[in-house]
């Protein structure tokens, strides 16, 4: 009996040492389920491409459904850090959920990769943290790029109105939008708050009609982006340039609003279906050319990839490669390796860099500005990847 107990006790740490545990707290249900589903698909695909061994140990991904709920996220993250003792975490994705996970992360400080959250509050909270790696642009990257693209096409001095949601997403981005559109030479003549999930946005649109704006920037989440685009179409609002922060690239958004209402919307993203990126010359199987990866994704999931599928795949794969190359599961050694990687990924160079806001490790902050022209995505900015020109909406 005593012998059996001793054997069992001895076998637990041995088994744990043979495994690389990666926590994946994701929004697998609730209002951000679309984000979490993409996150999970990306991680699954990365594992399938990489194989289930890293640094000579079996990889075990511990998925946790954070239910798109801050409290559940905190509990799930705490469980991963304190009970499961994971050294590595990928996710969650939605800004509020990531922010809610920060206190739990601080309890054990695993190496944390976040393939989402554009919130600069997170950037501020994680200032100076060497075990935090952010693989998604920050809020200001959206407006910096969009304002530059429109200024280049339409000239400066135009009137800009900003419609923003009353949740954290809209409120946080508003100052950045005002700052970068003003810096780019535009006059921000109105900012209009809309309630998330509002049934009627017409009052806002009728007020804006009187200002005759040249540019309307809609800083809202996808569901409100659908309502906004549809009601702009119904109201017959004649605004030459319509900009959406997080939704015009989504099939979900385009299907919901229809081709007429979606036409000429301008979006900012890191990934567009059909864009070209070469494979990494040294790791072409793990970081293939975009078209090859898209083919593999379609074959596996029978659907088109979305931007977070790509981001999550790339993020998870970078972690796996860093563990492999570090040859250990020590989080500090893997963090140092991750910080030194320079791989050509589907999102561009993986080279992490510090940000002006204080984040130590940031990758993939270069964004592309595109416009929906009919059923095509036309990349309009930056010029080195542009394949067409920005067209005003008639």
């Amino acid at each position, binding site marked *: 009996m005593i012998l059996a107990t001793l054997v069992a006790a001895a076998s637990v740490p041995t088994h744990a040492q043979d495994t690389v545990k990666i926590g994946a707290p994701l929004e697998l*249900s*609730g*209002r*951000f*389920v*679309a984000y979490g*589903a993409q996150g999970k698909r990306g991680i699954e695909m990365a594992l399938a491409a990489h194989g289930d061994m890293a640094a000579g140990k079996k990889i075990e991904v511990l998925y946790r459904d954070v239910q798109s709920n801050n409290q559940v996220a905190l509990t799930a993250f705490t469980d991963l850090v304190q009970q499961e003792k994971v050294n590595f975490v990928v996710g969650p994705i939605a800004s509020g959920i990531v922010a809610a996970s920060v206190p739990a992360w601080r309890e054990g400080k695993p190496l944390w990769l976040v393939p989402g959250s554009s919130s600069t509050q997170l950037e501020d909270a994680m200032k100076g943290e060497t075990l935090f790696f952010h693989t998604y642009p920050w809020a200001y990257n959206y407006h910096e790029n969009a304002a530059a693209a429109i200024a280049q096409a339409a000239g400066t001095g135009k009137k800009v109105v900003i419609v923003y949601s*009353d949740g954290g997403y809209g409120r946080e981005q508003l100052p950045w939008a005002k700052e970068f559109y003003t810096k780019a030479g535009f006059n921000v003549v109105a900012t*209009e*708050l*809309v*309630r998330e*999930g*509002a*049934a*009627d*946005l*017409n*009052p*806002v649109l*009728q*007020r804006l009609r009187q200002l005759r704006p040249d540019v309307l920037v809609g800083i809202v989440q*996808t*569901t*409100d982006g*659908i*309502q906004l685009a*549809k*009601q702009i*179409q*119904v*109201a*017959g609002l004649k605004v030459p340039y319509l900009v959406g922060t997080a939704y015009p690239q989504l099939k*979900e*958004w385009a*299907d*919901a*609003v*229809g081709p*007429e*209402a979606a036409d000429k919307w301008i979006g900012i993203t890191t990934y567009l279906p059909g864009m070209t990126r070469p494979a990494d010359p040294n790791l072409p199987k793990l970081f293939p050319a975009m078209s090859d990866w898209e083919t593999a994704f379609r074959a596996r999931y029978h659907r088109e990839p979305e931007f977070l599928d790509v981001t999550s795949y790339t993020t998870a794969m970078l972690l796996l490669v860093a563990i492999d190359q570090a040859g250990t599961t020590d989080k500090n050694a893997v963090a140092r390796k991750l910080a030194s990687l320079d791989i050509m990924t589907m999102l561009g160079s993986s080279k992490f860099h510090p940000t002006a806001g204080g984040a130590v490790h940031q990758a993939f902050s270069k964004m592309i500005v595109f416009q929906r022209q009919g059923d095509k995505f036309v990349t309009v900015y930056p010029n080195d990847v542009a394949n067409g020109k920005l067209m005003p909406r008639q």
Partner: protein
Amino acid sequence: MSMLLQCLVDSILLGGLYSLMAVGLSLGFGVTRIINFAYGEFIMLGAYGAFFCSSLAGIDPLIALPAVAIGVALFAAIVFEFSLRRVLRAPAINQILLLFGVGLVIQNLAAILWTGDARSVETPYSLTAREFGDINVPDGRIVTFLVATVLIAALLWWLHRTELGRAIRAVAQNRDAAVLMGINVMRMYLLSFMLNAALGAATGAMASFLLTVTPFMGFPMLIKSFAIVVLGGLGSIPGTLAGAFLLAFAETAVAYYVPDGIGWAEGVAFAVLLGVLIFRPRGILGQAVEVA
């Protein structure tokens, strides 16, 4: 001046949607004295029903509406038979928790089956509008207003002119007297619950082209319906209609005339509700309810 007229037009059209949305909840409460906390999910099921009829078979939500309403009503009958019937005599909190749980199950099943993707139906009238000078009148909202008017008129006619309708009203007015008159009360409860679900589904069918369809769309609509029903007077259909239009006017006026008003609109609406609860707790047209 044109802004004022536009505000009035928007208010009236929004009032049509709110009336249809809240009248089912009001009817259900009037008869069973149970607030259906799964009502938002019946709206959501109606919206998905209309969406799938449109996307899979090309059927317009208006054409699909009767089938969708009947389908959701039958589903509600199952919910009634297998869950609600067992707690009809239980304390109100048990009924509320049960229906809230049923709503959560339906919501999560919808998210699993249909994903959390946002959807909307495109119809020939959902993205068009009529212009009268500076006044913009969206066709989709006119259609919704007309459908709401027809359905509510039909409901009122049915309640007042048919034997079943009168039986339902009798149960709503005095359950014990209705029993003595030989009315099958349990059958009336079932019927009113199904009607409640059917009206919710009809609202969902309209919402499918006006709003964004997601598994989570129901709860905010339940809360707003509840506010309207309390505002108008629990169980009173005329009161519910008054409450719906009052809420629509309050929200729209604030949205038009207060800076950043659309963000405040719902807050103001609930402030109105709070005022009514303090100064006229029975609602605009509600009757006093004696609590034993």
